[in-house]
């Protein structure tokens, strides 16, 4: 497998290049578009990325809830001191701390989920990449068998790529 990056100075030429890749028989599983800002979904005909982020907060919330339950019930049972005529296992104040625990769990797990689902961190760095992307250039990165790379390069050049890199 080889990789090729085509760099474009306008979104239009990058979109044009993706059409040419379609024509050359590439599917949108094989290439990715790199941009410095989110474009509306489907603007480059790219694959709709699927994710399971919504599961993370539920798992975190559940863990946080039970941690809250353990701490609140545990402390009251361990030190059974009556205050202000309230019962030893006082549920209303427990609910407050359990609620915070639930939310804390959800927040931490969501944050972890965002990083994992974004396929980050990439310990090797950004890989085949160009720093001009964060200046507004659009890059198309294609992974394909070495023999098909030249077809992609042709498509990139035809669409007006300002630079092409291979790895």
């Amino acid at each position, binding site marked *: 497998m080889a990789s090729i990056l085509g760099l474009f100075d306008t*979104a239009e030429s990058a979109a044009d290049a*993706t059409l040419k890749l379609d024509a050359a028989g590439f599917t949108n599983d094989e290439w990715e578009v790199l941009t410095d800002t989110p474009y509306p*979904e*489907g*603007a480059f*005909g790219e*694959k*709709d990325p699927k994710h399971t982020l919504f599961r993370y907060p539920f798992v975190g919330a559940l863990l946080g809830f039970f941690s809250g339950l353990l701490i609140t019930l545990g402390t009251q049972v361990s030190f059974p001191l009556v205050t*202000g005529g309230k019962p030893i296992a006082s549920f209303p104040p427990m609910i407050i701390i359990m609620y915070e625990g639930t939310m804390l769990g959800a927040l931490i797990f969501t944050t972890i989920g965002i990083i994992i689902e974004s396929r980050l961190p990439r310990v090797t760095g950004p890989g085949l990449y160009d720093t001009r992307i964060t200046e507004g250039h659009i890059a198309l990165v294609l992974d394909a068998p070495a023999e098909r790379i030249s077809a992609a390069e042709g498509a990139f050049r035809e669409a007006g790529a300002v630079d092409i890199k291979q790895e």
Partner: protein
Amino acid sequence: MANNGHNGHHVPEALGLTPAEITADQVSRVVSSGPKYRTALILSGALFALGIVGFVIRALEGFDDRSIWGYYAATMVWLLTTAGAAPLSAFAFRMTKANWRKPMVRAAEIWGAVTIYIFLLLIPMYFMIPSSQTGADSFRPTIWFHASWGAPHLWSAMGMLGFILAAACFFWITTVPDHAVLRDSDASRSWNRRLAIRWRGTSTQWQILQVGIILFGTFFFMGLFTAHFLVPSDFALALVPGWKDAIFPAYHMLTALQGGLATLIVTMYVMRRWGGLSDYIKMEPFWALTKPLIATCFLWFYFWWCAFIVYWFGRSDGEIGVLRYIQFETYRPFFLAGFLLCFLIPGILLIANPVRKSIIGPTIVSLIILVGLFFDRIRIYVASFGVPNDEVGHHAFDLSHALPAMILPDAIDIMMIVGAISGAVFVYLLVTRLVPPISMWEMKEDVLLRVIRPLLRGTYTLIGKPR
């Protein structure tokens, strides 16, 4: 929703009607009515008449014993909480320039006209509450404190009248351009000519219309706050010993926001399903309205909890008495029903995206909320009306004695409940003869400002937002 099949990206749909088609269609709806409409009108009218009979029978028993009027009060306040608050959506989402509001605003505004009917229902209730000189030590708490003249009846009624006036004005101002269209059509009637106030559609008139909507909308909004300050404090808080609860009017207002949204969603569903308006009212407003709706469900719990935790922690006799009476002992079944149906069940259902992104989902949730709010009003107003006069003004329930017993509805109560609700529907149906159920001028604006346009390889909705 169409799909371009390439990458899962949805291609948006346009309204598909021209301004001329919108006018022709809506004008024809005012002129002629279908069999479904006539059936609904006859049915609601008949049930309304039944309610009037119930009211007369109950009135013969007099207004002195407040406890027999509890269900009447709960129903009236339920209507104020639901139908009375529905127009707020039309104002609030206009102010945020939300484009999706356009097909639904009129459905909301027509409820503004119904508030006049709600006020009529309120009037008898003023004969039931004690004056500020009644009760223990010749004093009962009111927000009017020691004012002896006219308190609370006159001042409260004046406040409510202000609200009704604002609601009626708001309803009228938003319909002026549509009355002009009707005036110029074959369907012209004398009220169209009068209500259109010589509207010609000049730029100045459009500007004044916008300012008028903002002003009357603001008055309506303030009036709603006033109404949900006066009614709960005079008809609930002041009647229950020890119920010193500053958050209660805010809670009441919150339930009005919730009830207003739920009423609107159900109204939109009915208009789509049986009113033949499915070309106009699509999924977008349903989906958009579920966002504030879910917020109100969670806020329901929050506002309830804020009062509960302070009472639970305070533990004074009065506080524990109130908790026992309206929540955890006497009216527990109604409280639990309200808790489940206003907060827990709708809250959980609305978290699910598929429920929110549908038409039937938000409608079912809204119906659940409306039922829940009815139970909630019962535990508040039937309970408040159940406290005898000689208890009023005490700071605390005497916990050594039994709390007042729970009151269940009898046949007359059922007649009045069904009749009062049917009466609101009856009035609503009558008003749709006066103006079209879709705001023509705003739908035409939508045609101008909503464009489907390609961007690179995708196709998207482009929404214009005039400065």
